[in-house]
């Protein structure tokens, strides 16, 4: 509905596209650069915030900035100014923001109020106080408060040169600071109590992390708006988490995602009319998030399900082969003798080995056939191939090694050992098997330590 808009299409041209892409125009350059810088620093700080399970702190903090902003404005007016001194306004905003979020920490440490309720309380009460103060400021004679609110909604499109420099310097400083304190913050996020036991000033570090967040929030809020800065603190970090389990990599990836969404979003918004920069940047970031959620290489949904499916298949295969081997073993007249490897086994007996249905067994057999483990099979009986028998004896051997180990070294009753071994045997690595062999002094396939005619396996 919106994309058929003739005004929208008419203003799009390659000239403008090139201009934006190569940052030729001054206004675009400042907006795009500052949004990206902000994305980088917020992405970095946000990673720690995410791992500290306090992602919404940015939300509470940014709302708690309002009273400080208005107080700073009122103080400036009282001293005879116009109230348009950006650094002082930022300082005021940051002061109450920091105070509010420190209060959340205090409530968490000294009362039974948890982080989430603390954030809700600080957010609403401080913002309410800010609104009241704003009312007072607006109605004071001789003050011009117009534009004070744009602090909260952001004004990326109309940034002054001085603002731009201030923002860039702060963003870079925050990023460097974060890198400098990486070790301390990492320990704080992963094991607070261990850090405390090492004698680290945990509360001061927590407060310092908050200070960095307050700085990002305050600087970002007046440049790109409250909602965008909240999003910047959460989304890149959450997206980066899907790609890696390594904190160092996550920090850089999160900063990269923040930077790139700032750059793409701000460029798009100056390319096309009537697209508010903040909203577009959020949408770019959340598209990256959704992509990472699905396809992330470390914890993405597809990856995790694939891994699970693979494990399930492996377990199924191993169960089937062991069942066949043990049936063969039982069918041979003397258990220790080498028995004919491709002797047909009735399907009925395989089904009776475990708590699986005929359907399950058939499915497993079909897959085993594709993997060349079966010589032939039909509805009544099956026989293993050469490779299938090798695999089956290997799996049975692992299972028994583990069972014997549990009986001799972990004092598990022989009647219970089968199930316990079952939950571990699929994960036995070759090294572990070798270790078991050495420990138990067993080379060939040992006999089962418990009777094989079993009750139904859970």
């Amino acid at each position, binding site marked *: 509905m*919106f994309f058929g808009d003739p005004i929208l299409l008419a203003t799009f041209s390659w000239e403008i596209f090139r201009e934006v892409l190569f940052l030729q125009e001054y206004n675009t350059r400042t907006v795009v650069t500052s949004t990206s810088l902000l994305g980088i620093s917020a992405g970095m700080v946000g990673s720690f915030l995410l791992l500290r399970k306090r992602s919404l702190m940015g939300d509470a903090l940014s709302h708690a900035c309002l009273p400080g902003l208005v107080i700073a404005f009122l103080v400036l007016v009282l001293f005879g100014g116009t109230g348009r001194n950006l650094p002082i306004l930022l300082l005021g905003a940051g002061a109450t923001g920091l105070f509010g979020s420190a209060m959340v920490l205090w409530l968490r440490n000294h009362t039974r109020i948890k982080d989430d*309720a603390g954030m809700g309380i600080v957010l609403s009460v401080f913002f309410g106080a800010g609104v009241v103060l704003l009312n007072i400021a607006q109605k004071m004679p001789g003050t011009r408060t117009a534009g004070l609110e744009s602090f909260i909604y952001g004004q990326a499109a109309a940034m002054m040169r001085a603002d731009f420099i201030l923002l860039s310097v702060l963003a870079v400083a925050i990023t460097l600071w974060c890198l400098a304190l990486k070790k301390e913050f990492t320990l704080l996020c992963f094991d607070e109590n261990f850090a405390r036991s090492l004698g680290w000033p945990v509360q001061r570090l927590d407060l310092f992390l908050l200070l960095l967040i307050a700085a990002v929030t305050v600087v970002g809020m007046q440049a790109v708006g409250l909602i965008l800065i909240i999003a910047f603190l959460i989304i890149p970090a959450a997206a980066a988490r899907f790609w890696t389990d390594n904190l160092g990599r996550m920090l850089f990836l999160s900063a990269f995602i923040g930077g790139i969404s700032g750059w793409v979003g701000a460029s798009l918004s100056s390319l096309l009319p009537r697209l508010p920069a903040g909203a577009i940047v959020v949408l770019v970031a959340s598209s990256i998030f959704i992509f990472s959620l699905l396809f992330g290489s470390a914890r993405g949904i597809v990856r995790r399900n694939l891994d699970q499916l693979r494990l399930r298949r492996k377990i199924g295969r191993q169960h089937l082969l062991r069942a066949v081997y043990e049936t063969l073993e039982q069918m041979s007249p003397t258990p220790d003798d080498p028995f004919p490897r491709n002797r047909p086994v009735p399907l009925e007996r395989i089904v009776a080995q475990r708590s699986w249905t005929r359907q399950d067994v058939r499915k497993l057999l079909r897959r085993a056939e594709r993997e060349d483990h079966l010589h032939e099979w039909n509805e009544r009986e099956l026989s293993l191939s050469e490779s299938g028998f090798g695999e089956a004896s290997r799996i049975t051997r692992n299972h028994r090694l583990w069972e014997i180990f549990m009986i001799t070294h972990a004092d598990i009753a022989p009647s219970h050992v089968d199930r316990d071994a079952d939950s571990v045997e699929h994960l036995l690595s070759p090294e572990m098997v070798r270790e078991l062999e050495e420990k138990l002094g067993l080379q060939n396939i040992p006999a089962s330590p418990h009777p094989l005619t079993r009750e139904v396996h859970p």
Partner: protein
Amino acid sequence: MTWYTMDTWIVVVGALAGIACAIPGCFLVLRQMSMMGDAISHAVLPGLALAFLITGSRASVTMFIGAALIGLLTAVFTQWISSWGKVERGASMGIVFTTLFAVGLLLIVQAAHHVELDPGCVLYGALELTPLDTVTPLFWLGLGWETPRAFVVLGIITLVNLALLLLFYKEFKISSFDPNLATTLGINAQKMHYLLMSMVAVTTVAAFEAVGSILVIALLIVPAATAYLLTDRLSTMLLLGGGFGVLAAAMGHFLAVWLPEVHGLPDVSSAGLVAVTSGIFFAAAVLLAPRYGMLGKFLNRRPLKKHKAATPLSPEKT
């Protein structure tokens, strides 16, 4: 000081919002999901915009339905992201509501020539203006009794919330404190979660229309947290939560009327002052609560210290 009928209506509307919010609010605090109200009240923007764009009317019923649906969707998406993606719940809330807010902003700006939604009104609310928008709810009985629309809406929501609370009190209680126990007792904890989320969404949207989003968050969380500091019983907590909501509404508006006259201050926002008042109650509870407050802790610890001093542990005696 002058107090008009209008002021009474404002207090009544605020008090109803306080009761309606305290019911789901207590459970949000107990389940550590307090920021849900905040997330929902930010996320309803696209619901408002879409409802308007689809139906083309600014009738409050369509707006209400659109907003409540998106509010519920916020809860559903949050649940999906946190359970499928293993993302911490606060973070997934943040992702969902910022994204939805951005979509809403985009919709509004794109359709700017025919929508007038004032973001200021959405955020700050216009508690003072609620008595001006009136309806006659009993016209079908032939009564021409005029009441503020917010009163009717919030009255209905309060009654529905109370009814749900009484109907499912046991289920809510068990599934909030021990979801696993609830499952073993045959209570579907998932369903209770979504029922609670629907309550939060509908209440937030209804109260939000009347009193603005900051006040909704304040009334959802602050009285419930205050009550949480004072008691260990769920029923007492619910009663206290509702009570603090009502008190905050009354005191807050009283201050809004009184302050300008006494101190020569200009008119100030009632919604803001109600939020501040509830914050003052909370601060008082933090300081003075008998068991979990600072004073209570101090008094409880003193006899222990004395006891310790009186019987020093020495190796000879043992």
